[in-house]
């Protein structure tokens, strides 16, 4: 209900503003913050925007999350058992990378433009930490493995045709936020392509925050680890004792 109201308000606002400034790209999210609460199981955000000739031109939406180091491990068979035998540590990778487009990326623009705008899995910088040991497989195989496995987690995705164009000027897209999302500042970029070139760009921030009981537990477990450990023991002893007393016949 709120969403419908929001959309219709936006439509009114956008159609009014479009009258004045031609080609202007306007876009916004229906919420600026995602809260990882105790009952959190993923979320869906609505991105809504407008530009004239939306149906003719192309739109790409890129959502990126805080940068992290990721370990890629490779298994091989040792005496019948599959063990992690090789490791690579990739530094400074986006923990979240969702691309939504009107058409496939290679149709929208040239390789070079995509590279400059860091669009697509191929253009995510792949920098290995020094202590990585990748002897048996070529680097490209490790990079493919990274992209494949990150897509499996739902944190990376590239979806074509997910930006829906309505009556030539409006566009909308649903951004799926999976339950395993990391807290931090997320960047939402909307790129407007015309004839393969970026004409306009709109950028906004999305905050993902942990709140509530789960967030507190996580914080205490990491910041006051010894206290947390002692509390966990007291909690267990007390509930064990309570259970015994409650059910004593």
């Amino acid at each position: 209900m709120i969403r419908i109201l929001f959309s219709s308000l936006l439509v009114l606002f956008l159609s009014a503003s479009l009258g004045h400034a031609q080609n202007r790209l306007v876009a916004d999210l229906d919420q600026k913050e995602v809260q990882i609460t105790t009952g959190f199981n993923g979320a869906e955000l609505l991105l809504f925007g407008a530009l004239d000739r939306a149906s003719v031109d192309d739109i790409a939406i890129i959502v990126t999350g805080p940068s992290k180091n990721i370990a890629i491990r490779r298994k091989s068979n040792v005496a019948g058992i599959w063990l992690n035998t090789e490791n690579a540590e990739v530094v400074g990778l986006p923990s979240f990378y969702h691309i939504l487009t009107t058409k496939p990326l290679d149709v929208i623009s040239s390789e070079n433009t995509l590279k400059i705008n860091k669009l697509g899995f191929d253009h995510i910088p792949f920098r290995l930490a020094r202590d990585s040991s990748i002897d048996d497989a070529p680097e490209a195989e490790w990079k493919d493995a990274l992209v494949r496995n990150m897509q499996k987690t739902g944190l990376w995705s590239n979806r074509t045709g997910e930006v829906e164009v309505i009556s030539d000027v409006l566009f909308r897209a649903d951004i799926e936020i999976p339950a395993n999302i990391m807290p931090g500042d997320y960047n939402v970029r909307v790129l407007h392509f015309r004839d393969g070139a970026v004409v306009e760009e709109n950028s906004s921030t999305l905050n993902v925050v942990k709140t509530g009981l789960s967030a507190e537990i996580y914080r205490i477990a990491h910041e006051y680890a010894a206290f947390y450990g002692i509390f966990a023991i007291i909690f267990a002893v007390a509930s064990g004792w309570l259970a015994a007393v409650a059910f004593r016949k």
Partner: protein
Amino acid sequence: MYVYLPIAELSMNIFTIIGLGGAVGLLSGIFGVGGGFLMTPLLIFLGVPAPVAVGTEANQIVASSVSGVLAHFRRGNVDIKMGLVLLAGGLTGSTIGVWLFALLRQLGQIEVVIKLSFILFLGIIGTLMLIESMRAIMRSRQTGARRGKLHQHNWLHGLPFKMRFRKSKLYISALLPFGVGAIVGVLSAIMGVGGGFIMVPAMIYLLGMPTSVVVGTSLFQIIFVTANVTFLQSVQTQTVDIMLAGLLLFGAVVGAQFGTRIGAKLKGEQLRGLLALLVLGVCAKLVFDVVITPEDFFSVEFLR
């Protein structure tokens, strides 16, 4: 209804967790076992990261051992002196175990070590239990079962530091219970189990303790060893999920109450046979996990 587990960092159905706690609690009530050796692998099957499953389960076992030991204390079935010697070993072993755990985690090998440890011990225990229960079933059909020797002397009795354990009616080297405690302590840290399923047979067959005090004494020392594991894992690896532990515990407490009532009405041998099959089933699933060619040779993990 979903609950976001703060340390496991995943969202899980609350009823799945309570149900799992209840099912394992039911089994532990029926069979009089701790249940950690089933709970940890089942949590892993449900997608909880293996290190979190282990750390959390240690925390839960503290609670279930506390409620279990109280009844044994009331009946005077705890050999405290023996328990303290076992405990000295247990604390040493579990401290080494947590250190080993942190090292293996850093090397990216902890998952497979946890699984292999479970395969080894579930395999052995499951097979022994199955054989034992089948024998018992056969024996109950025959008449005039024989009794073996109660106590045998071997080289273990020649070890130094002899100590008298009045309650257990034993005069043995303190190194024996210390060693048993230490080995079980290491396993407790790495596998997230109380270790009763290894300790109890070791106490009966290796130390020669009377069966009446075995369970109470092992529970007594398990409390402190798992508390030690809970504390050290919290500090060193941050893998204790208090919310997951609490929900599992809630299910387990209720399940165990029903289990005890059911267990009292059912026939022992057949039940033990069933438990043995269950243990072997979990073991088989784990074997399958590490032996079958993985769909993807690669895996990814966020580093802190």
